[in-house]
């Protein structure tokens, strides 16, 4: 399943572990890569810096936290949308914010979906799982049909 890579960009280790757990419990079998900040995610996606040697595979979906150190989630999204190689990758914004502005900013930058991380974790796990299954199990050429 290495060709159906999902990238999770999340700086909070607790959230990362819980998200990973939710995905696993939803039987998402895809390989999941994790980056801690926007800069690292950018290097990972374009195989630069410390990721220069990794197999050049683009993720089929990105779960992107809104608030990230260094390069912010929305800024990263803009960079991805500005690049021909990544402009069609589905991006789901994850955030603990209920702010209308954040949501608008995310959609304006080209997010495909936006999930607010609820405190009630079961709901969140459901949402993440549904999305991961939806994006992850789709044919890889979905990105071209968008």
């Amino acid at each position: 399943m290495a060709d159906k890579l999902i990238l999770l960009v999340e700086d909070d280790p607790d959230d990362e572990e819980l998200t990973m757990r939710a995905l696993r419990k939803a039987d998402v079998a895809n390989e999941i890569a994790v980056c801690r900040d926007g800069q690292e995610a950018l290097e990972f996606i374009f195989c630069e810096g410390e990721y220069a040697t990794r197999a050049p595979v683009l993720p089929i979906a990105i779960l992107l936290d809104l608030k990230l150190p260094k390069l912010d989630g929305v800024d990263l999204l803009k960079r991805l949308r500005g690049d021909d190689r990544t402009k069609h990758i589905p991006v789901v914004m994850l955030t603990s914010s209920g702010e209308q502005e954040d949501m608008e900013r995310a959609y304006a930058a080209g997010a495909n979906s936006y999930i607010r991380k609820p405190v009630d974790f079961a709901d969140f796990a459901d949402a993440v799982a549904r999305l991961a299954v939806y994006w992850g199990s789709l044919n890889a050429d979905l990105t071209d049909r968008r």
Partner: protein
Amino acid sequence: MTTVTALLFTVLAMVVYDLRNYGNTVKRDIETQTDLLASSSSAALSFDDPRAARENLRVLHHRERINAAAIYNARGAVFATYSRGGVARQFPVLPGKEGVYVEGDQLVAFKRVIENNEILGTAYIRADYRFWQRVTDYLTIASLVLIAALLVAALMSLQLQAIITQPILSVAAIAREVVTRNDVSLRAPKTSDDEVGVLTDAFNSMLDEIEARRAEITRLNDELEERILQRTAELEQSNRELESFSYSVSHDLRSPLRAIVGFSEALQEEVPDLPPEAQRLFERIRAATRRMAQRIDGLLNLAHVSRRPLTVQMVDLGSIAGEIIEELRQRDRDRTVTTVVEPELVARGDPKLLRAVLENLLENAWKFTGDTPRPRIEVGTVGADGETVYFVKDNGAGFDMAFADKLFAAFSRLHANDEFPGTGIGLATVQRIVQRHGGRIWAEAVPDEGAAFYFTLGERDGR
């Protein structure tokens, strides 16, 4: 007027004096003339020479005033006569007593001709007195003088006006201009060192004073304005800081909460067959974290309604209220609540924020009628002083009006949480929204009888 009176009296006095003088002079003159005639006629009478007497008399034609003259002999008979212009005249048949008499407008004088103590005869002269003519002449002259004097006085007063009145009028004009143009930098020109000059100086120094005061007020005002601007900037700054603080706090507080809930659930899953007491404790953890999450959400929302720009439009409050009530019914299917929404209930305001107001008030009404036998919720308006007052009324638990002032403060609650759960932020949010619309909110309640929340949106009739 006084001038005219004074002048009149002066003229009158002069006339009286002069006429007296004139009368005396004329009488004396005629008397002298008669004396002369008498003494010059003595020879003619002595020699009984009427021709000489007539010669004597003819000399009188040089005196225009004298109309007639005659010489009587010692027996009192006319001896010789003279008449001006040869006009035939009546002469007294007998000479009268010596002296000068006024007869109408004529003066008549008799004088005995005496030589060596012997009366030879009498000289008689009759002359025009012309007293009334004199009076008329005098009055004419006096009138002319009076008129001339008045004319001169008028001219002089005009001249004086130019000297005295003009500067006063110009001071008055400047005073008017100061008021109409609101310009205290104007000054009246000083033209003289007299009383008018003093007035001008006083007026100008008054303007100096006003100008100085005004400059002081302007300076204070500017200072105040600057201070207000500075304070406003400081306030805005601290407001922004507070908002971004509450924003990031809310975010940062949410993630550990998520971890607590998430990991306790994970733990529950990892340990199947948990004893019931452990299950119950897990539930307590979840409930507590959910409450905390709600409070954080409430705070975020409160910060949010303070910050979000208003988009004002006509809002159909009635249908929004209907939708909210329908949601509440769906959520709470076992409850039967009578609801009354005033038809065509509209308002001007921000649709999302007004929805939040109604949501909070209706949820409260719904919540606090939970134990009421025949619950009833009413949404409508009352008019007061041309202002529309909206209300949400219920017949639920109500509250003690003694605590009414705590209603709208964040996190303050009037009911125990196990009685009626809530975050204590809803009404604070409602108040913030109403205030942002320029309106007011207040409540009336009676414990166990119900509560009514009233609010205005700063709109007036005709808006």
